[in-house]
C-alpha cells in the first residue's frame, strides 16, 4: 500500500490526503476507501444523530460516501475533506428524514422558544469526570440517550460542533442557518445535556438519569 495514504493526522498527512484526492480524480477510484477510512465513523455518527436509527444511519452514510466519490471533482481544496464529507452526509440524512420520517413526532423541547434565556434546572455539583468512564458501555449509553432526547435542531448543532469539531461557521453552512443560531442552539444543547446528566453522573456513576424515571427536568 502506498505510504502517502497512511497518516492524515499531521500536515504531511494533509498533504498526502490532497495527493490521494488528485489520484482518485485521475481515475484511481480504488483508493477512495483509503481516503474516507479515517472519517467513516464520524460520517455514521453524523447520520445517526439525525436519523436515530442504526440501519437508516448506516445506509445514509454509505450513500453519502458514494456521492462523495461521484462528485469528488467538485471538492474544493480550500475546505477540509472531512468537513465536505460530513456536509454531504448531513444533507443525505436530512433528505431521508424528510422523506421517510415526516410523521415522527419530535420531542417537545423542539418547540421551545430558541431565543429565550435558558435557566439551568439543576445545580448538582459535577466535578471532573475521568474520561476512562467512557470505557463503560452503560455510561456511553446514558450519554447517547441524553443526546437522543434533545430536539433535532439542538442535536444537529451539538453533534456537528462538539462531536465532529466543525467550526461555528462550518456548522452554520452545513445546516444552512446563521452563526448566531448555531451559537444559541449550542448553548441550549450543552446546558440541557448538563441538566440531564449532572444529577445522575455527578456523584454516582451507576445511578439512573432523572428522565429515565419519566421526569424530564423541563
Amino acid at each position: 500500500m502506498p505510504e502517502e495514504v497512511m497518516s492524515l493526522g499531521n500536515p504531511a498527512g494533509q498533504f498526502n490526503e490532497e495527493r490521494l484526492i488528485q489520484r482518485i480524480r485521475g481515475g484511481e477510484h480504488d483508493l477512495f476507501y483509503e481516503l474516507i477510512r479515517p472519517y467513516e465513523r464520524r460520517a455514521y455518527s453524523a447520520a445517526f444523530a439525525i436519523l436515530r436509527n442504526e440501519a437508516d444511519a448506516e445506509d445514509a452514510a454509505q450513500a453519502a460516501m458514494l456521492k462523495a466519490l461521484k462528485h469528488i471533482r467538485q471538492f474544493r481544496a480550500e475546505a477540509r475533506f472531512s468537513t465536505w464529507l460530513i456536509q454531504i452526509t448531513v444533507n443525505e440524512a436530512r433528505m431521508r428524514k424528510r422523506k421517510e420520517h415526516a410523521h415522527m413526532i419530535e420531542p417537545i423541547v423542539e418547540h421551545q422558544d430558541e431565543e429565550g434565556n435558558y435557566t439551568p434546572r439543576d445545580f448538582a455539583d459535577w466535578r471532573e469526570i475521568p474520561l476512562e468512564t467512557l470505557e463503560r458501555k452503560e455510561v456511553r449509553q446514558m450519554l447517547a440517550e441524553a443526546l437522543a432526547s434533545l430536539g433535532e435542531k439542538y442535536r444537529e448543532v451539538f453533534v456537528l460542533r462538539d462531536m465532529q469539531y466543525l467550526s461555528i461557521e462550518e456548522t452554520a453552512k452545513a445546516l444552512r442557518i446563521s452563526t448566531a443560531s448555531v451559537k444559541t442552539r449550542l448553548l441550549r444543547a450543552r446546558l440541557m445535556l448538563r441538566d440531564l446528566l449532572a444529577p445522575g453522573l455527578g456523584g454516582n456513576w451507576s445511578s439512573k438519569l432523572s428522565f429515565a424515571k419519566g421526569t424530564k427536568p423541563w
Partner: protein
Amino acid sequence: MVVNCEQVWREISNYLEGDIEPGLRTAMEEHIRGCKHCNAVLDGTRNVVQLYGDERMFEVPLGFSQRLQRRLDENMHRDRRGFLGWMVAAAATVLVAGSFEVARSSVSSHPELRSEHAQPGAGVPPDMLVLVASDGKTFHAPGCPFIHDKAHVETIAAREALRAGYAPCVRCMKQYLNAG
C-alpha cells in the same frame, strides 16, 4: 464590569469557545469564583463537551466497515463492468489489508499514548510550551478552558509532552490536527 448568574449562563458556551471579550471573561471568572451554582454549571458544561468530544462516543454497528467496502466495490464494479472492475475490487482489498499491516507497524514505532483514542500530535511545533497535569492524558495551550486539575499543571515543551505519551487537546490544539 460585574455580571450576574443569568449573564454567566447566557455566555457560558461562548466562554468555553474562547469567544468573548477579555473584560467579560474576567468578570465571569470573578463571578464564578464566588458562585457555587455557576461553578457547577461551568464544570458540568465543560464535562459535557469533553465527554461527547471523545472518539469513543463514535460507535458504529458491527461489520460497518466491511459492508461499506463491499458497497463501494459493488459500485465501482457496476461502473466499470467486466474484468477491469474486478481487478479494482481485488486491488482495493489488498490495499486495505496492507494498510492495517502498515498502520500496526507505524504504531509500534511511536511512544505509547496515554489515551489510545487520542489523535497524533506530530503537527504540534516541538518547541511550543504546553501545559500538562501529572495525572492527565492531554497537553494544552496556556489558557485552554479544558484543563482539569489546574492546581497540578506544569509547563513543558510539546516535544517532551509527546515523548511522555500525552496527546494534544483536540480543542486548543485543533489547528495542528488535520484529521478532524
